[in-house]
């Protein structure tokens, strides 16, 4: 299996305090990798370093074998790497459809064709499919801010998939989503993973969600990987239980 994402010896420290301390791992094509760990273990910092929101202190990140360390987030996104943030980040005053159009528009044509061309940037079919898939079609023309929290969360995730990315990093997609919607979200993620061979890395605190969705799990504590394995292996790993329950 080819490694879609490869992280080597990644370190990030803030004023001498290490948030991520020499993390190395690979994500393979079509995988759904879970990333778990106690609060403050460096999961989100790791995402931010991979995706260019933060510059790593040292180490290297490769996508499809190509080094991407230090590249700008917008360039990475246009290479097919997409993400969601821990806190919901939709554009509340744009309609649901416009949020999706926004998420896809920079992936086609030139700057000038986007100025002179169609308002929907030729994405009406793609946005329609995404609205259907995430069951948001009835709300398409509503401002995103008028949706319930759970629906906004679905939109947030849908936006990450709008441009057909091959690698998606999801930071706590299940946070604040009710149980029914959570089951729906898990189904959507599975469907996309199976249909499009998109590869996911998922940070999540909801263990039930992680264990049922992911094919492999990494456990992070104090900026280091302390365990790796299938959901079953992780569940019974004493180091992991120790890290979560305290020393």
């Amino acid at each position, binding site marked *: 299996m080819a490694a879609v994402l490869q992280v080597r010896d990644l370190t990030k420290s803030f004023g001498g305090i290490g948030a991520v301390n020499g993390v190395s791992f690979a994500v393979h094509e079509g995988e759904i990798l879970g990333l778990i760990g106690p609060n403050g273990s460096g999961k989100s910092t790791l995402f931010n370093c991979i995706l260019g929101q933060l510059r790593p202190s040292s180490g290297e990140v490769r996508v499809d074998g190509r080094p991407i360390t230090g590249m700008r987030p917008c360039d990475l*996104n246009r290479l097919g790497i997409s993400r969601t943030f821990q806190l919901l980040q939709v554009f509340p005053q744009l309609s649901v459809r416009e949020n999706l159009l*926004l998420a896809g528009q920079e992936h086609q044509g030139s700057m000038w064709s986007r100025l002179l061309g169609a308002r929907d940037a030729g994405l009406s079919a793609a946005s329609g499919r995404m609205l259907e898939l995430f069951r948001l079609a009835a709300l398409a023309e509503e401002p995103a801010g008028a949706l319930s929290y759970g629906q906004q969360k679905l939109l947030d995730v849908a936006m990450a998939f709008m441009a057909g990315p091959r690698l998606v990093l999801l930071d706590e997609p299940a946070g604040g989503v009710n149980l029914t919607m959570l089951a729906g979200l898990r189904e959507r993620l599975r469907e996309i993973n199976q249909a499009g061979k998109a590869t996911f890395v998922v940070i999540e605190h909801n263990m039930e969600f992680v264990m049922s969705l992911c094919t492999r799990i990494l456990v992070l504590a104090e900026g280091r990987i302390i365990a790796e394995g299938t959901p079953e292996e992780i569940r019974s790993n004493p180091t992991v239980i120790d890290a979560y329950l305290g020393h």
Partner: protein
Amino acid sequence: MKKALALAVLALVVAAPFGLKPYGIYLLSLWAVMTIAAIGLNLTLGYAGQISLAQASFVGIGAYTAALLTTQGWPLGAAFALAALLCFVIGWLLGYPALRVAHHYLAFVTLAFATLVYLILRNEEWLTRGVYGISGIPRPTLLGWSTKAPLDFYFFCLGVLALASAAAWWLLRSPWGRAFTALRENPVRASSLGIDTRRYTLMAFAIGSALGGIAGVLYAPLVQFIEPTAFTLGLSFNLLLMVIVGGAGRFGGPFLGAAVSVLLPEWLRFSEGLYLMIYAVFVMLLLALCPSGLLGLAERLRDSWPRFFKSAT
């Protein structure tokens, strides 16, 4: 409803100058010119969220370009082209600091630029004739239509305003408008969606400045005499006020804001020495009660009216 409103406004601005004295027509023309500059600033500030205290400098660059070219016998069309290009390029360069700093820091960078432009206009006499200013700026003749008379020149300004509005409307309805909004609301998320925030920030500055330059090209033949003090910080603040009082980030904002800023002080003249004070209190009250400007206030009223009617019946 929106279409009807737009048509009503159009009918009003076309009918307004008839029966007015030349000074009234001058004020209407000034409104049209200032609206163009405010549309530019609304792009930069209202939509893309980048503060600029230098819009008056671009009006000045445009006005001096027009004055210097047309007094040498060049057509005003050449001044439009040159001023738009010049202001676009300078605006683009002024956008670079905006990539590093934001808010009041950015305000200070643009403030320094405004001072620089003023000093050039005042001190570089070989080019700008310094404090003596430039007089005798001719009004253009278009395909045999002389715009010398106030009424004709007003319609010429209105025509340019119509073109500028149409261009801004197109821009804001295009994916660019969406990208500008995203840039203003949440640049980190925008960039994670592939939006090149750097390029859009520079574009917002460049296009907004070019519109300031175009307004300046109209301003010179309107007043027919320009000197450096017309383009100082006072005008920049005034333009900022127009955008904010009208409703920043709303298409109609600059039209309404410029009307308030240009016409309201005139209507308040009956109060003689008090008029500027009344105007100041009005602005303070408006911004304290409704920071989203007059159009924001109108939206709020529109949204609360149905509820009011329901509770009444």
